[in-house]
Structure formats: C-alpha cells, structure tokens
C-alpha cells in the first residue's frame, strides 16, 4: 500500500469508527517507514475533523464521538513510539485540565468539550465530576496546564468556578493559568463578573475560545 492509501485508510478508520482498521493501517505505516506525523495529520486528525463536524450537525451522537476518539488513541499508541524514535513530537496546541465543580455530578457536557479539545490538538487531563478547587489546582500544577476548565450545571455549584479564580488570585497564581468556565447556568456575564478568561456557550465554542486563549498567550 502506498503512503497516500495508508493515510486514506487511517482517515476512513476514524470516520467509520473502526479500531481494527486503524491498527492495521498504523502498523502498515510503521512497517513502510513512512513519516508517522504525516499519518497523524493527513489521516487521523483529518478523520477527527470530520467526526467533529458530523457531531456538530447531529448526524452522529455522543457515543460515536467518544468511540472515534478511542480509535484515534489506539492508533496513536502505535504511532507515538515511532514519532518519538524520530526525535519528533505531535504538535500540541496546549494543555488543559478540566472537570465538573465540587458537588456537581453532571459531566456529559464536560465530556464532549474534553473530546473536542483532544480532537483540536490539546493535551486534555479530564478530572471527572465533583472536583474540589484544591484538586483543580493540584492537577493543573502537575500537568503544567495552560488552561483550567470548570464546568457546572447547578447554580449552587457554579460558585466553584469563582472559588478557583479567587484562590488563584489569593496565592498569586492568577497569571499562571487561564480559566475557562461553562455549563447551563454559566454565561458570558457570569464569566466577566468572576474574572474568567473564557466562556463557551456550546462545546464547539469552548474549543474556539480555548484556541484563542492559547494563541493570545503565545503572542
């Protein structure tokens, strides 16, 4: 199989959510000594873009999005050692630590944002639900995060977003991390009021905001 055909196979494996096909194509690529980064960019990532668009249009649903992400990760397990062996690395847009605020057990929205951020090239550390302010901070330090994302679905858990920003100010680390907020009762007004750096009304918008924040940081 020539390299263009392998890229096409990687692309189709993602779009068709076919892990077996992804593994075969990834192994074929390694065997053929083809640049694995090219395989990521022209095959896997291109496939994830299509998956993201289809999810946005509601042509596919949450399970398909997650399963496509799993196929991507499975193929990356084959390709990553090869990329590292060549002294390269997959270009990463940034690192984000995210979770749902303390007391809140809703996480489907946050899960979607996490998946779309991964698709967009972020290194994502998903802390899950019911995450304390201290844990957000601790995990952000550990991951050397650029952004901390706090989701909340209840008015009484929304305060966890403010709590994190207040704590960062108090310990002199507000400039170290950018903070993004989201969830049903959150709004741009709320984000402005508590001094958050970004807010996204939808998962897609959250990704755009994260990309803007990262590019602002880099500038």
């Amino acid at each position, binding site marked *: 199989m020539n390299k263009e055909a392998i890229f096409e196979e990687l692309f189709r494996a993602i779009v068709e959510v076919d892990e077996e096909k992804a593994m075969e194509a990834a192994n074929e690529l390694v065997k053929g000594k083809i640049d694995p980064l090219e395989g990521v960019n022209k095959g896997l990532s291109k496939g994830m873009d299509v998956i993201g668009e289809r999810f946005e249009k*509601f042509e596919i649903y949450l399970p398909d999005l997650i399963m496509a992400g799993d196929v991507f990760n499975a193929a990356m397990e084959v390709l990553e050692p090869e990329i590292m062996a060549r002294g390269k690395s997959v270009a990463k847009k940034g690192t984000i630590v995210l979770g749902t605020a303390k007391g809140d057990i809703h996480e489907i929205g946050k899960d979607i944002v996490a998946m779309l951020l991964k698709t967009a090239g972020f290194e994502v550390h998903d802390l899950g639900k019911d995450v304390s302010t201290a844990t957000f901070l601790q995990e952000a330090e550990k991951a050397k995060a650029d952004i901390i994302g706090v989701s909340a679905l209840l008015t009484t858990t929304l305060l966890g977003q403010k709590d994190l920003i207040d704590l960062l100010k108090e310990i002199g680390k507000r400039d170290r991390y950018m903070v993004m907020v989201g969830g049903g*009762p959150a709004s741009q007004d709320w984000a402005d009021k508590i001094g958050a750096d970004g807010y996204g009304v939808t998962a897609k918008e959250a990704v755009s905001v994260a990309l803007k924040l990262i590019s602002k940081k880099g500038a």
Partner: protein
Amino acid sequence: MVSFIDVINRAWTGPYYSEKDYNLKVFVPKLREIVKKYKIKCDPENVVPCDDDLADRIFKAGVELYASVGTYCVDTQRIIQFTEAEIREALAGAPSAPVFGEGKDAKALVARKPESNTAPWCFLGACGVAVSSEEIFVSIVQGYGEIPLADSITAPSLATLNGTAVQAGSPLEILACIKSVVLLREALEKAGRPGLPVMNSIATAVSDQGKIAGSQFGLRPSDGWLIGPMAEMKVNFERLNEIAYVTSLGGHVVVDASPMLGGYCGGPEGAAVTAVAYHVQAILVFRGSCHDSFPIHLRTSCSTDRATLWVINASSQGITRNSHFPLFNISIIGSGPETEMEFYENAACVIGTVVSGSAGVESPGGAKNAVTDHVSPMISKWTAEVAHAVPGMKRDEANEIVKRLLLKYEGNIDNPPQGKRYQDCYNIKTLEPSSRYVELYEKAKEELTGYGLNFKF
C-alpha cells in the same frame, strides 16, 4: 417485588464494569440493537404520533432494554440487574393512584390513558429554578399556591441565604435546605393552602445530607420527594441513601429521569426506548410513587424541538398504554418570562403529553431552567389552563395544533429569548403580573382558542 435491600445487595454483587465500558459496551450497543429489532422510527413531521402499535413496540423495547442493561451503580461500578419476570412483577404491583397532600388538598394522582377524558394533575411551580432571595422565594411560592388549578407545587431553589451565596456541599447548603422548607410552608399558609403537596421536596438540596436534614423542618411523607438517576441508567449511593430514608418514613419518592437525545441514547428512537427503561427503573430501584419523565435535547438543553417532542409523546403513549404506574412530564422551555415564545413552547409540550395519556403535567421554569429568577406563576397558570383544555381531544387533532405551534417558535429554538426576572415582570408584594405579561397571555389564549383548544378556565 424485589426488596430494596435486595436492590442494594445487587449493587454490591452485580457484574463489574468501568463506567465507560458500561456506557459504550453495555448500554449503547444493546440500545442500538433493540431500536433496530423493534423497528422504531421517529417521524418529526408528526410529533404527536397516533400509532398504538409503535407505542407498544417502544414499551416492549424499553422493558427489554432494562432487563439487559439494568441500573449502573457508580459507587460500586456494578450493574443492578433484574430478570424480565421481576420487571413484569414490579410493573404489575406498582402504585396506580398515590395520594399526595394533606387535609382538603389531599388528592390521588391517577394514571391516565391516551385520549383520556379525565383532567390531568397539575404540578405547578418553579421546577427547581434558582431564586435570588428569601423574599422572592416566598412571593413566588405563594403565587403558585394561589393558582386554583394547582394540585401540587414545585419549589424553587434558594441561591442565597441572608445575602450569602449558597455553595453546594458546604454547611450553607444544609442551612439553605432547612430555610427552603420553612419558607415553603410559610408561603403555602399565606396562599391559604397549607396542605398542598410539594412535589420536588427540596430543590435547594444537591446532597443527600441537604435533603435529609432539610426535611426535618417541615417536609411531610405526603409530599413528593424528588430523587432521580444520572444519565443514562445510573445511580449513586447519595440517591440510594435518600431512597432508604424516604421509604422508611413511608414517604413518596417522585422519580425524575431525563433521557438525553444526542447523548448516550443516540437519536430520538433511542431516547424514547430509554424513557421506558427509566419508567421501570423508577419502580424497582427508586421505589417511586410516580415517574416524572423529561427527555431533553443535548444541543438545546430543552424539550420543545420536534425530535424531543416526538420522544416525549411516543414514549408517554408507550408507557401509559402499558403501565398503570403514574407518569407525568415536565416541559423544559428555552424562552423565559414575559415572552410570546414561552406560551407557544409550553403549550406544544402540554398538549402532546396530556393527549398521550400522562397522569399530569409539570409547569416549567423558564430560560432552560438555568437562569436565576427567570420563572413566574403566569406560565404555571397557563400550563394548567392548557392542560384542562386538552382532555377528550384526539391525538391527530393535537398533532395538528402542535405543528402550528412549532411553526411559531422553532426558528428561535437555538437562541430563545431569556425574558425577564420574576421581580421585573411581577409585583412581588401584590403578586400581580405586569400589564404586558397579561396582554401576552390573553393574546396566546385567543390564538389557541382559534386553533381549536376549548379552554374551560
């Protein structure tokens, strides 16, 4: 029926799966297989279906789904499983007319059938929407209590206590839960209906401790203690703790469940089947007295788009044709108080659910139930008046009316007007709505009368 202790034992002994594997390797593939097997197909052009065979297939599919996927306990990471025979036994032995409330406000919530002539129960209230102060809390609950058609009320949640923001999981939550119950009773006494049942217990409560502690200050076994699963088909120990407490009191568990269209349920067909599975779960795991179903759309976070309306009506018909365990529905609307759209959105939901056989309707908050103080007694009064105008109507007739209503608002569904805060469209002392709000209400009523709705109130 399988005992509650046996349910807890199964939470410790059932098959072990990680949560992700339960979602993707148990729930999703089984649901997809069952939707295909029963040939369930959504028709967004006819959001109030009139197909008994489809309704019955959705019910059978939901029962089969529940027998396959059970309820996932996130604390033990095990599946609480039931056999199909246990499910049949639970459905046969489920309550059919639980009595809520006290004194002259005590009343039975009676199961209905599609196209029934009997009036539905009206759950009027704030649907748990947050309010910004104790003063607003009392004013608005009194407003609900004063609506003559109210069979029960649903309370708001209290976002502040003496001006301090309430944070979930902190001692402030406990204090706010206690205060909520005290204020509820005060407001209903002011309304002259102290026996009116509160059907969402303590909306301020996020934790089990909050609900149990708050209840000591005036919640009654004859109230409805709202307890719900997590999406999809999951429960945790906090909710099971609440059930243990309420059932020991002899209280009524009101089980709210929200299959999410676009989430793990997939499309509308999967969400409809899942709604039935939740109905069975409400009896077996949640030990409910009734089931409050509110399918919701992942993208819009409300229930008023075509696909979600179909899910609500198709699943409700499946349930009410095949189960005597009372079902009611909430309509989560995108628009807020003092907007034209809230009347249309709400009527579309209420007409469909009443004609589909729901035992009752719950009035919505406003603005997706997500914005503080965006809630009003006006939409509750409207819910009740529309609900009482529907009994006796045929499903195809209702379908035509709902289609006309959809044309009025569906263009704005992605960006609905949030409307006004309660205190900006009502006089909170006299409980009178603004003249603009009254105008909008009268215009909507006239319009719906023109569509064929026979208002009795």
